Every structure is written in C-alpha cells, then in structure tokens.
C-alpha cells in the first residue's frame, strides 16, 4: 500500500478542484460528499501505511522520487547539472501525521455538512477545506523541501481564504489580512533559510541534505543561521512568540475551519517543518536552544492570556498557541518524540474542543461564555465529549494529553530545571483556564434565560464526529505509548557528526555516553530515550497533584452561581488583568511597529522625492543638459564651420578656375584638359 502514498495528497487536491469547478453553488449541494469520500480514501491509505509501520511489515523511511526537472548552471566556472526530483518520503512521523491529518479533516468535513448547512457558499467552503488538507498532506509526504515550501505557501493561501470566508464582514477581512501578513513575515525567514541551504548543499532532497549534515560538512555557524530562519518560518506558521498575534484573530472564520487550522493543518506545519529539518537543529545547539526558549515563552504568554478571555473560541485559540509552545519547547530541548507525540494527541483533542465549541455556538448563537452556563442539561453529548477533551488537554492521567505532556515535561526536566518549572506552571494554567471554560459553559445555572431556552443538542452529523474524536482523545495517548510504540515510530533522528563537531558541554556528553554504553545490550537508543521520557517518581506525583489542585481552584472560582471570588481576584490584580487582557500589548506593539514603519517609509519617500530626486537625478540631468548645450555650441561653431570651410574652399577654387575660361570656347577647355593630362602623366611617369 505504501507505493500508493503519492496519492494521499493528490486525491483531496483533485476533489478540491472537482468541488471548486463542478456543479452549481447551492446551499444544499451534494458536492461536499465528494470531498468526504476523497478524504475517506486518504484516511484508509494512511491508516494502512500506519498499520504496516506499527506492525513492522514495511520498512520506514520509504522514499520514492520521480524526475521533475533539471537545470544546468555554471559553478565556479564548471558546468553542473542540477536535478530536482519530486517524490514522497514517508518516515515514522509522516506516517503518524498523515493519519492524524486525514482523520481530523474527515471529521471536520462531516461536521461541516451540518454546521455550514444553508450557507451561500456551501460548496466553496468544502473545496477550500479539501485544498487545505491536500496542501498539508503534501507538506507531510514530500521528500523535497521545495515542494514542502510550495505546500507551505498553499496552506498560507488556504488559511487566508478560510479565515476570510465570510468576507462580507469587516472582522474576517481584517483577520485574514493579519494572518497572511504575519505568516509571510515568518516565511521570509524560511525562504532565506532554504536559499542558504540550497546554496550550501545544492539539493532540496531531505535525504541528501541529511547526508550532508550527517557527515558534518555544514559549518555550525551556517547551520545556526539556517536553523534560526526555519525557526522564524515555523514561528509564523505555528504561532510562536512574537508572531502568534494572528491566531486568536483567525477565529473569525467558520468554526470547523478553525478546528482544521488549529488541529490538523496550518499550525502543525511549523512544528512538522522543524521536525523534518531536525538535523539542522541537531547541528546547531544555538538554534536548538532558541527553539526551546521560544516555545517556552510562547506557552507561558498564551496560557496567561487564556486566563482572562471570555470568548470561548479565543480561549481555545490561546490554548492552541500555548500547546504549540509546548511542542516547540520539546523539540528545542531534544524531545523530538515528545514534541511530535503531543502534536498527535493535541490534534485530536483540539479538533474535538473546537468542534464542541462550534456545537455550543451553533446552539446558543454567541461566543461569549458569560451568556452560557448550565448547558450540560441541554447538550449532554457535547458536554461529555468536551469534558473528555478538557481532561485530556489538562493532563489528567489516563487520557491522551497526559502521556504526551508528561513526556514533554520529563524531557524539559532532563534538559533544564528552570525551564521545567515555568512549563509546569504553564501546564497548571492550562488546566485552570480549560476548566474555567468548562464551568462557565456547562456548569451551574443558565445566565441568559432566553439563550438557554433556545439551546438544543446538535444533529447527529455534528455529534458523530465529536464522539469519534473523543474516543481518539481518550485512547490515542495510551495506545501510542503502549510498549514504547511511539519511540519506535517517531524515532529521534541523530547525526553522527554532532558528537564530534560540536564542542560537547557536560550534559551533552553525558547524554551520548549511556546510549553507546547500552548498545552493548539490547535496544540501543530506545533505552536512553525512555529514560529521558520519564520524570522522577516524586515529581511525577507532584505534577498530577498540582494539576488536580489547579482544577479544584478553577471549580471554586467558576462553579457559580455567583463569581464574587473571581471578581474580587480580578479587581485586586487589576493591572495584571489589564496586561493579560491586552495580550501583553503584543498587538499594540505590532500596531505601533507598523505605524512607525509607515512613518519611516514616508520619511524615506520624502527623502527620495526631495533629496535624491532633486539633487542627484534632477542635478545629473541638468548637468547633462548644460554639457549637451556646450557640445552643441562647439559643434555649430567649430565642427560645422570646418565642414562648411572645406566645401566653400572647393566652391571658391572651382569658381576661380572657371573665370579663367571664356564660356563656350572649346579650344580653351581642351587646353586645360591637355595641361591637366600632361601634369597627371608627368606625375605618374616620374614617380
């Protein structure tokens, strides 16, 4: 089945085009089922690949390339032919991610059939979703960084289209522009990094670039520059600090579209890109450390902002940013497996959270949690599935989020204890704000009677995907963690050059040592990684207890019916509250930055207009004009008079000579002819 892997991105792309150009736009169009069927086939293919990989019947990584194009170029005077193949590269992380993406996209599409029912651009929405998913699958499966980059940009386009789906309103328009421009800022870094990489390696093939790094040909300085460029791109796409500002606003799109952006596509792409090019980071401890800190800061800032938001989707958006921070931090501290494991589990429970929130919004027609409350009675299925997702994201033992977050915390603990405490605090905030959302929405009494009265459970097309995703949210973690399957599938890449090239600090050398040591026994690197993936027992227990405490605190503050304590806390910490509500002034900062940039641009324009144009361009022109006039004068006076003089001389001589001859006297003509002839003959003969 793995030979058919190239079909996985192509099928939804074809479906997207069929839906885009086929049929007529109609609020009850049957077209969406084309996309759903295509995604079903994709999912079946992905699952078969995953299953074969998990059972070990197929050797990963699987790579197959086709000829795409080649070009000749002169390098240092010698002709070279560069080959650019196009192909698929399915390694362990790709096998897992394909399943996750296809699964979440399928669920989102089924859900959307009910959610988008009756929208005037019903069919178009599904075309966008299919196209979006196709781009993401292409990014995951591609063996070539150029194709990956193309898919990356196609996703940027798709996210722009989906966020601004309801472009008649001002909010989505502003949000789509913000998202596009912010991610493009990051993409510029990625673009430069790719150019640099190609200039150095001469290939975009991941396997060849890996060889280059593995042999230690890449100087660490260059690796650092490339790594930071990739990190900037990933920060734009995966909403890392300080470029996360677009994601909370991206809520303006349709809610299932948000689920897709937050769970399966878009934001996962940044993390995946870092994991695809992980060898760059392995070669550069600086870039690695930067990724770790960026992730950590993002996780902390976003979680703190989620504490004060009342918009249900916005809380989820901040939680996505925060969880992505967790993943980036994990990758940065060397927890490759942990980061991608969390990406997987997060995809399921975050898709579930968004679809659940969509179900709630569909039912009460508001995003404001202050107008909800007590919905557990009205929407039992949504309530139960949301509870599972919230328990999972909070890291309550047994559910998927617990395993992956625990692994991340363990990796961070083994890397740096300060980072661990910040991240643990962030994890506690996560539990707190997720339960705050839960209690405000489902617990207590109805606060808005009219909205409560009209609330109802969503149809089966909406609750069905919720149940499926809830099952995965509950069991994906345990299933993947069973017998160390996740370590086998998502094995951390290594580069042999790193140990020798990098001046190993103490802990680094220590990390290499036991791996070599244990290779004498069975299961070489696995043992070492398992060690990294576990907290000391006392800390593990403390973590669980603290999470439960955090949930309890949330319960006492937000269980209702009055929120006196919460309000008291809010007023007593007013400055902090404002800081969080203003999102740490990041938006204001960027706005100010844009304003300043605009002013600088205006100044530069003025200088260009008044100084550069006036003095240099116009001055040069004036100088040239003066010079031309001088030249003209010279031409008229000296050159032309010389020309006229020569002509005039000939004329004068002719006229003078003619006056010697009387007109019509043939004999005189003849005489002069004879004289001229004899003179000429004399001259020729006496030479």
């Amino acid at each position: 089945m793995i030979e058919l892997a190239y079909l996985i991105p192509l099928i939804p792309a074809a479906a997207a085009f069929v839906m885009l150009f086929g049929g007529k736009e109609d609020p009850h169009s049957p077209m969406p089922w084309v996309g759903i069927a295509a995604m079903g086939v994709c999912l079946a293919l992905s699952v078969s690949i995953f299953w074969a990989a998990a059972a070990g019947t197929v050797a990963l990584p699987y790579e197959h390339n086709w000829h795409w194009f080649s070009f000749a170029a002169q390098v240092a005077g010698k002709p070279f032919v560069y080959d650019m193949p196009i192909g698929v590269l399915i390694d362990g992380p790709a096998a897992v991610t394909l399943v996750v993406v296809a699964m979440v996209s399928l669920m989102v599409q089924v859900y959307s059939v009910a959610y988008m029912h009756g929208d005037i651009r019903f069919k178009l929405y599904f075309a966008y979703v299919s196209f979006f998913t196709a781009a993401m699958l292409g990014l995951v499966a591609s063996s070539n960084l150029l194709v990956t980059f193309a898919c990356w940009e196609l996703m940027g386009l798709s996210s722009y289209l989906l966020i601004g789906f309801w472009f008649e309103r001002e909010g989505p328009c502003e949000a789509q522009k913000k998202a596009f421009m912010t991610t493009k800022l990051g993409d510029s870094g990625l673009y430069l990094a790719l150019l640099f990489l190609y200039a150095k390696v001469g290939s975009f093939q991941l396997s060849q670039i890996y060889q280059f790094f593995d042999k230690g040909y890449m100087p660490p300085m260059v690796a650092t520059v490339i790594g930071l460029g990739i990190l900037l791109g990933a920060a734009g796409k995966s909403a890392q600090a300080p470029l996360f500002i677009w994601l909370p606003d991206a809520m303006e799109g349709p809610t299932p579209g948000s689920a897709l952006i937050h769970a399966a596509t878009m934001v996962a792409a940044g993390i995946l890109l870092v994991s695809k090019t992980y060898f760059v980071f392995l070669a550069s401890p600086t870039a690695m450390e930067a990724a770790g800190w960026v992730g950590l800061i993002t996780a902390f800032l976003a979680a703190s902002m989620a504490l004060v938001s009342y918009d249900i989707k916005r809380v989820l958006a901040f939680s996505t940013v925060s969880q992505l921070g967790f993943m980036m931090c994990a990758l940065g501290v060397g927890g490759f497996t942990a980061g991608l494991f969390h990406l997987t589990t997060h995809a399921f429970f975050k898709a579930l959270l968004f679809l659940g929130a969509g179900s709630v919004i569909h039912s009460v027609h508001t995003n404001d949690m202050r107008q909800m409350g007590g919905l557990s009675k009205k929407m039992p299925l949504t309530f139960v599935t949301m509870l599972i997702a919230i328990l999972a994201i909070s890291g309550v033992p047994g559910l998927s989020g617990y395993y992956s977050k625990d692994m991340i915390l363990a990796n961070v603990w083994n890397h740096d204890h300060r980072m661990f405490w910040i991240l643990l605090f962030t994890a506690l905030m996560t539990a707190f704000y997720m339960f705050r959302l839960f209690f405000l929405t489902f617990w207590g009494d109805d606060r808005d009677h009219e909205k409560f009265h009209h609330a109802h459970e969503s149809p089966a097309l909406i609750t069905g995907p919720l149940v499926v995703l809830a099952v995965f949210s509950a069991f994906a973690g345990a299933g993947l963690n069973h017998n160390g399957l996740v370590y086998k599938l998502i094995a951390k890449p290594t580069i042999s050059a790193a140990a020798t090239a990098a001046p190993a600090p103490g802990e680094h050398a220590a990390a290499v040592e036991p791996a070599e040591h244990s290779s004498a026994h069975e299961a070489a690197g696995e043992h070492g990684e398992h060690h990294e993936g576990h907290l000391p027992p006392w800390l593990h227990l403390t973590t669980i207890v603290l999470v439960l405490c955090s949930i309890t605190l949330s319960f006492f503050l937000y269980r209702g019916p009055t929120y006196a304590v919460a309000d008291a806390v809010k007023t007593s910490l007013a400055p902090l509250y404002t800081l969080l509500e203003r999102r740490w002034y990041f938006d204001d900062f960027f706005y100010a930055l844009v304003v300043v940039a605009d002013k600088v641009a205006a100044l530069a324009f003025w200088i260009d207009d008044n100084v550069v144009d006036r003095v240099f361009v116009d001055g040069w022109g004036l100088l040239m004009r003066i010079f031309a006039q001088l030249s003209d004068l010279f031409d008229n006076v000296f050159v032309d008079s010389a020309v006229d003089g020569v002509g005039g001389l000939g004329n004068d001589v002719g006229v003078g000579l003619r006056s010697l001859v009387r007109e019509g006297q043939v004999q005189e003509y003849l005489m002069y002819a004879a004289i001229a002839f004899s003179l000429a003959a004399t001259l020729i003969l006496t030479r």
Partner: protein
Amino acid sequence: MTLSHYLIVAALLFLIGVFGALTRRNIIGILMSIELMFNAANINLVAFERFLHPAGSAGSALALFIMTVAAAEVVVGLALLMAIYRNTDTAYVEHFNLLKG
C-alpha cells in the same frame, strides 16, 4: 634607326597635332590636326610591332583599323561642319559657342 627615333618622330607629330588643335581657329585646320595625332598613334603602333613583336601583325592591323575609323569619323565631322556652316556662315570655332557650360 632604333625604336626611339620612331617614337620621337611620333611624339613630335602628336605635339604638332595638339598645338594645331589648340591654336587653329578654322575648324578644318583642327580636323587636320586631329588626323596628325591619329597618325602619330599609328606610327607608334607599327614601330612597336616592328621592334618588339616582328612576327606578329596585331600592330599593323590596328593601324589599318584606326585609319578606317578616322576616315569614317572625318566623314561624320565634315558633314556636321557643313551643317554648322550653313547655320552660322562661319568656319571659326570661337563662334561655335551655342553649348555654354
């Protein structure tokens, strides 16, 4: 008698012809001077043949040819002269100034 003697005679004859052509006022005299120049050329041709290519006959053949052409030319010239004389009543060339340049 060498080639030079013949050539000197021919050159003198030619110069006499030139002088006559430039100085005679009567057009009959000018035509006669031109005939002298033809004959100077003929002497040259025959002398060159005699001294340089005694076996050949091209020089004397060309001389004969020139004599024929000269005779024909004089016929045309005299006919023109008759025509001009009838119009102008004079045989002096300074009066033949109808074609002013």
